[in-house]
C-alpha cells in the first residue's frame, strides 16, 4: 500500500469537501472524477515507468479516498477516526439486548427465505433492511454533525456493521438461489 506516498490532506481535504457525515454525493462524484482525470494511469501510459508507478499510487489513494467517503459506514468510521474516536468494532461487543434479538430474528427470516427459495420474501427483507439502514444513517448524521456525540455515533457504526453483514447474507442467499 502506498502509505509512503503521503498526500498531506485527509480524504475530505483531497476532494475539497467539508468534514461532515452528511455528504453531497453528486459533488463527491464530480470531485472524484476531476481528480482521477489528473492522476489516473491512463493519463500516464505513454510516460516513463517511474511516472506510471507514481500515477498508480496517486490513483490508488484517490480510489481509496472515494470508496471511504462514498460508503456511509466507512465514512463515519473514518470521520470518527479523524476526531480521535475508535469505533471498536472488533473489541466492543456489548450491544443492547433488543438490538441483538432483532438481529437474530432478521437472520432467521433470511435463512428461512433462503431455504424455501422464496425470492419475493427475500426482496421484501432487502427493502426493509435498506429502510433500517437509512434510519440509522440519519441518526448518525445527527450524532456526528449536529450533536458531536461521538461515543453514541461509534455505537451507531457498530450497529450498521451488523446490518452490513446481514445485507451480505441476503446477497449470498440470492446467489445460492441463482445456482
Amino acid at each position: 500500500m502506498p502509505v509512503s506516498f503521503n498526500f498531506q490532506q485527509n480524504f475530505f481535504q483531497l476532494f475539497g469537501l467539508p468534514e461532515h457525515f452528511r455528504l453531497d454525493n453528486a459533488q463527491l462524484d464530480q470531485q472524484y472524477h476531476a481528480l482521477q482525470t489528473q492522476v489516473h494511469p491512463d493519463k500516464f501510459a505513454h510516460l516513463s515507468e517511474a511516472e506510471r508507478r507514481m500515477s498508480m499510487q496517486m490513483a490508488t489513494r484517490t480510489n481509496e479516498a472515494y470508496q471511504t467517503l462514498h460508503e456511509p459506514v466507512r465514512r463515519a468510521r473514518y470521520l470518527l477516526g479523524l476526531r480521535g474516536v475508535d469505533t471498536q468494532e472488533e473489541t466492543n461487543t456489548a450491544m443492547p439486548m433488543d438490538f441483538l434479538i432483532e438481529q437474530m430474528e432478521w437472520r432467521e427470516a433470511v435463512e428461512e427465505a433462503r431455504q424455501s427459495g422464496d425470492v419475493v420474501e427475500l426482496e421484501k427483507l432487502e427493502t426493509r433492511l435498506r429502510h433500517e439502514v437509512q434510519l440509522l444513517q440519519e441518526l448518525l448524521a445527527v450524532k456526528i454533525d449536529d450533536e458531536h456525540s461521538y461515543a453514541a455515533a461509534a455505537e451507531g457504526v457498530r450497529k450498521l456493521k451488523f446490518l452490513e453483514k446481514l445485507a451480505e447474507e441476503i446477497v449470498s442467499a440470492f446467489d445460492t438461489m441463482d445456482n
Partner: protein
Amino acid sequence: MALLQISEPGLSAAPHQHRLAVGIDLGTTNSLVATVRNGISVVLNDAEGRALLPSVVRYLADGNVQVGESAQAMQSEDPINTIISAKRFMGRGLSDIRDTLGVPYRFVDAPGMLQLRTVAGVKSPVEVSAEILKVLRARAEEALAGELVGAVITVPAYFDDAQRQATKDAARLAGLNVLRLLNEPTAAAIAYGLDNASEGVYAVYDLGGGTFDISILKLSRGVFEVLATNGNSALGGDDFDQRIYCWLLEKNNLSALNAQDTRLLLTRARASKEDLTKHAETSLTALLSGGETINSMLTRQDFHVMSQNLVANTLQPVRRALRDAGLKVEDIKGVVMVGGSTRMPQVQRAVAEFFRQTPLTNLDPDKVVALGAAIQANVLAGNRSADDWLLLDVIPLSLGIETMGGLTEKIIPRNSTIPTARAQEFTTYKDGQTAMSIHVVQGERELVSDCRSLAKFDLRGIPPMVAGAARIRITFQVDADGLLNVSALETGSGVEAHITVKPSYGLSDTEITRMLQDSNQHAQDDMLARALREQQVDAEQLIEAVENALVQDGAELLNQAGQTRIRASMDGLRAALQTADHQAIKRAIAALNDTTVTFAQARMDKSVSHALGGRKITDLEGV
C-alpha cells in the same frame, strides 16, 4: 522510483508527432486489429481485404507456423497440430478444462498452465496466442508504415489474474508494448458511448466464441465508470457448437470418433449454427474417414431447445452484476450487444425479454471491441484527443488469502475500482516462528479449494518472537491492467523483511527470453535492438529529469553528500549508455532510481501539496 515531473494540467510535457498505436481484440474464434486514422477508428484489413483473422494456429513439422485462414483450412485434416480457441486454455491447468470431449489436442499437464504437444514440439497457449498477435502486429506495421509505440489488448472482463497475466505475456512474446489490458465490454462501451454521446446506465452483454461477460457502466460527461461486472470465462459460441455436435453423435449413433472426424463435425456444427441465424432449418452433411455419411436436418426450434440452458446460464451473471451495482432492470437505459454469438436469435430474444427492451446492435458485434480498443490505444499512446474521457474499471473477482482451516479471507472485494490496494496485518501463532506461508487466491467461494490459486510463497527471516508479537503486513496492489502484485513486510520488530511476489503462473523474464530464443534469430535481434533503444531513451529521459530536478530542488532538499551521490550515479548511467548493452543500461537506470528515491519522495510531497494545496479542487475541474 524516479523523479516525477508534474506538468501543468492539460499540457503534455512535449509536443510530438502522431504516435502509432493499435487496439487488438484477441478473440477465441477471430482476432482483429484497429487503429485511429484521421480521428476515426478503423479496422485494418489484410492484403485480401479481410478484417477478421481466425484465431487458428497450425504448427508444421519443418518449424513453420500457419496462422488464420490457411491454418483454419487444415483444421480437419491436421487437427492435432492445428490449435483453435487457444484463448480457452490461457492461464488454465488441465483440471480446469471441463470437458476435453471433442477437443482433439494432446494436452500436457504442466504446473500453472496446460500445454499442447504438436509436431513442432510442446507449445503453451501463450506461445499460440503470440503467433496470432505477431501476424496482427505485422499487419498493422505494414498498413501504418511504421513501428508501433504500443497496443491495447482486450481481455474478457471476467478473466482472472492468471488469464490476464498469460495474455500480457503473449503480447510481450509477440514483441508488443502493452499500453493496457482493456476489458472487452468496456472497449465496446467506448466505441458506442463516444459514437452516440450517451448518458445514463448501460449494460454490455458480450457473448464471444469462448467467453461471456456482462458489464454495467455509468456514462456521464466523459466518464465511463464500470459499476459491476460478472460473467463466465468458459461459456461461449463454442459451447453451442458442442451441443449440436453431441446431438449429431446421438442422432447418428456415433461414438469415439478420431480427431479428424471430431474436428470435421465440430466445423459442420458451427456452420449450421451460423446458418440458423438466417434460416429456420439447415442440413448437416459430412463424410467421415471410415466412409460413413452423415446427413441430418436441424431446425432452429430444436437448436433453441438444446441450447436453452446455455442462454439461461448467461442470465445468472447478469442478475448478479445488477445486484452488485445496486440496480434493477428498469434502471438500465440501453443494452449493447457484443460478440459474434449475440447474432443467435435465441440470445437476442432472451436478452430483450430480460431487460424488457430491444438491445442495440448498430455497431458490428465482431468489430466493436477492436474499434473501442483502438480509440483507447490512441489516447494512451499520448496522442491528443479533442474530447478527453476517463475510464474507471473494476476487478471482476475478489482477491484473498488462505487462513486457518482452508478458508478464504477476502482482501479486495470484487468490483473494486482499479488501481486499488489493500493491506492486512497478520501475526505468528507459535513462539519463535520465523517463517510464514502465504497463499493468494481469487474467487468468491468460502473454501480455498473452490477458488483459483494464484500464488504460494514463504515469508522467511521473521525474527523469533513470542506468538502474536510479529506484525506481518501483506499488501495487495492491483494495477490498471487488473494485475495483482503482492508484497509482505515484517514490521513488528523494526526489522524489515520485504518480498515482492510475481504470481507463479506468470512467465518470468528468463522464460520470455528463452521462448524468444526458440523463435528465429532474426526476431531476437529485433527484440534486442528494440530493448536497447528503449533503455537508451529511458536513460536519456531519466538523466534529463534528474538534471532538471537537481537544478530546481537540489539545493533545497538535499545536502552536499546527497547531491554528490546522485551525480556519481548519473555518471555511472552515462558510462553505461556508451556500452550499447541494454542490460547494463537497465542496471544503471535502476541504480540511479534507487539513489534518487528519497529525493523523489521529497519532491513528490512538495509538488503534490503544491499542486493540490495551492488551489481549490474546483479550479481543476474541466481542465
